[in-house]
């Protein structure tokens, strides 16, 4: 069995987002593996370790320019065996999924894992689009993943509980909270080996995006909070100041 984990390169979650000429200003930004993808990769690596060699490979793929390679290298340091970088700037969900589909169509992965969303543009759609473009199954809201030696058992959160199912490979699993508890920290051996692992660079097809960013607006600074002691006071304020009742 072979697993591929899609990873994206996102600004560290503590980044102070600034815009310059209506574009995200990347100066001084630290880049990391998208946290969901990092958890997906953690689970994939755990499964491989527990599989007695039945899962022979965990690879990662990213649509990004060369400057994102430190992030890919980190995935390799965590334990991924190899990486694919599709050499273009990720523009929107569709073009990203389409580039991935092109690059992956002849690489027979049994399971492709995608994080629920990326913490930068939060588009929520690459995983499902990719499955569609590749013509394979996809399972969403995956909060647990097991491997019994032959097939993958998927746990999905549903209203008020969960369900477990098996899916015919190949398939895409869009994973979310619960897939792994904490991301795996690369150890020294992993870091040292990472530089010897291959990053295959695949030229992009140049798929045009369907979406164009028109404008960004930062959230307004929160107005000061007014603490209200009594119900009468609240009604008074809502009526006379806020004029909503």
């Amino acid at each position: 069995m072979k697993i591929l984990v899609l990873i994206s390169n996102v600004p560290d979650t503590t980044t102070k987002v600034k815009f310059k000429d209506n574009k995200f200003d990347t100066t001084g930004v630290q880049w990391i593996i998208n946290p969901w993808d990092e958890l997906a990769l953690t689970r994939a690596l755990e499964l491989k370790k527990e599989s007695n060699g039945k899962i022979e490979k965990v690879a990662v793929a990213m649509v990004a320019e060369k400057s994102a390679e430190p992030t890919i290298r980190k995935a390799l340091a965590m334990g991924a065996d190899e990486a694919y970088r599709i050499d273009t700037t990720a523009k929107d969900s569709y073009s990203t999924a389409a580039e991935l589909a092109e690059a992956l169509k002849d690489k027979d992965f049994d399971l492709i894992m995608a994080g629920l969303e990326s913490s930068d543009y939060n588009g929520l759609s690459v995983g499902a689009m990719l499955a569609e473009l590749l013509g394979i199954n996809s399972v969403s809201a995956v909060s647990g993943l097991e491997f019994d030696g032959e097939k993958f058992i998927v746990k999905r959160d549903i209203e008020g509980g969960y369900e477990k199912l098996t899916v015919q490979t190949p398939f895409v699993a869009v994973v979310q909270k619960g897939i792994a508890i904490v991301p795996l920290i690369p150890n020294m051996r992993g870091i040292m080996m990472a530089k010897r692992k291959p990053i295959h660079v695949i030229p992009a097809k140049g798929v045009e995006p369907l979406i164009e960013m028109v404008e960004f607006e930062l959230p307004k600074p929160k107005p000061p909070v007014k603490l209200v002691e009594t119900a009468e006071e609240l009604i008074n304020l809502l009526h006379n100041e806020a004029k909503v009742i």
Partner: protein
Amino acid sequence: MSNNKRALKGGEFLIKDVDYTQVFIPEEFTEEQKMIAESCRDFIQQRVLPNVEELDKHNLDLLIQLMKEAGEMGLLGISVPEEYGGFGQNFVTAMRALEEIGKGFSFAVAYAAHTGIGTLPILYFGNQEQKQKYLPKLATGEYIGAYALTEPEAGSDANAGKTKAVLSEDGKYYILNGTKMWITNAGIADVFIVYAKIDDDPNLSAFIVEKNTPGFKLGQEEEKMGIRGASTRQIFFEDAKVPVENLLGERNKGFKIALYILNLGRIKLAGATIGAAKGAINYSVDYAKQRKQFGTYIANFGAIKHKLAEMVIRTFVTESLTYRASQNIEDEEEALKQEGMDKDRAAIEAIRQFAIEASIAKVFGSEALDYVVDEAVQIHGGMGYSAEMPVERAYRDSRINRIFEGTNEINRLVIVGELLKRGMKGEYDLLTPAKEVAKELMAIPDFGKGSEDYFEKKHKLVKNFKKAILMVAGAALQKFGQAFQEEEEIIMNVADMLMLTYATESTLLRVEKLSKMYDPEKLAIYKDILDVFSFDTAWKMYKIGVDTINAFAKGDEQQAMLMGIKRFTKVDPVNTKDARRRIANKLIDDGFYNF
């Protein structure tokens, strides 16, 4: 390794200038070094910080478990060569890792003692069998190491230890008797590097002692002001039987081992203080942005901004000088190896070469951190005094750094003593430059218009600082001769002047190097740091210089030197208030130390 990388000998910065291309700056870490640092950071965040309170209750099982986890991740073997199961990383990488571990309170002390003074004596001085036997276990955390030099009556005067070793009748064992005190990791260690005198030897010898040695006993955990989560105990030897093959290095040469290892421990301690300081800054800015008084966040008050900025400046300076010296050590080691020196000796010689810089880093780093944690408590107000807050722990934990690895007084003696020793030995010529300064003092000052270039002006300032030191120390030495060493107040002052000068120069070289990497907009904040620090240093140098001169000079000589110190510490005005505000504003805006 090109020769120009080895531009200076240790201590030579006083009489020789380097340019920025010859120093390493933290902005030059490789991708791999950054990744190692990130792993250390994540390990501290995920595994250590949630456990610091429990560790402080002397939960040694938990401490052992965390050390083993660090071992599994390879973090205990960073400096150990691959042939002994480690990762053979270079010196600067190990320093960078230690910086991150430094955010881990008591755990950092246990880690540093194990990987530094606990492991390195065997790595550098052990024979093949000793290395084979112990290093792989120390590198993985199967064994934990400790270092036992101090005794109840032998602290700073470490060679005065009374622990005795005599050969057993059958010649198979050394029988040890004595008491060691304040031994870090004692309660969790499997192997101890123990110093004792064989028979009536004048000097110490070093031994590797395993914890299950018959006649070896542990005392109770000490109740300490800080680093309570680190195990500290007395250890007792009552006819302890140590196999003869566990003598480390040569008989009677143990004190040398002790000193070499302390040199290393000193610069490593500085590395850990950088991380601890950044941690305390992060807690403080976070709090200052949340706490409101008088209707506004306290981060908006100028008095708080002043503190935050000064915390950043001292941390930035510690970082500049510590990594500069670390790279010097690494380059020296490489160069010596290329010249054919055995690799263990090369490592030892390299650190010995930069013993002065290591002591400077230790003193500067520990005092910078004490300032940082003190103001961190202050920024937290009453909450800073609450045991619930991390800064309360940081405040207590910081204090030990000025005491162990040689007290800061002892290290100041080392800074000046080593420099004079090298001058005396002819490793470099201190006399001629000192005479030149004395001559310059008598000549009419050069009132000519100097350069207007920002960096050239700063270089001139640093050059003048050096002249101030040569003037003051040169005259004092001439006056006191052999009795100079009795004049500890003057020695402390000279040490401070050397330290401040090295600190300013290292910061200047870093910012100058950054000026070739960053656009002017991004560079501005670093110039602010340099401006404030060099300006403050000039005034400090002036005060220390005046005090020193008044302590021994009289009449015309005194007058001439007082004029001289004024001239050598003359500095252009800086609006330090505005500069500090800009530094604080960046910190507040970023929300964490990001310089």
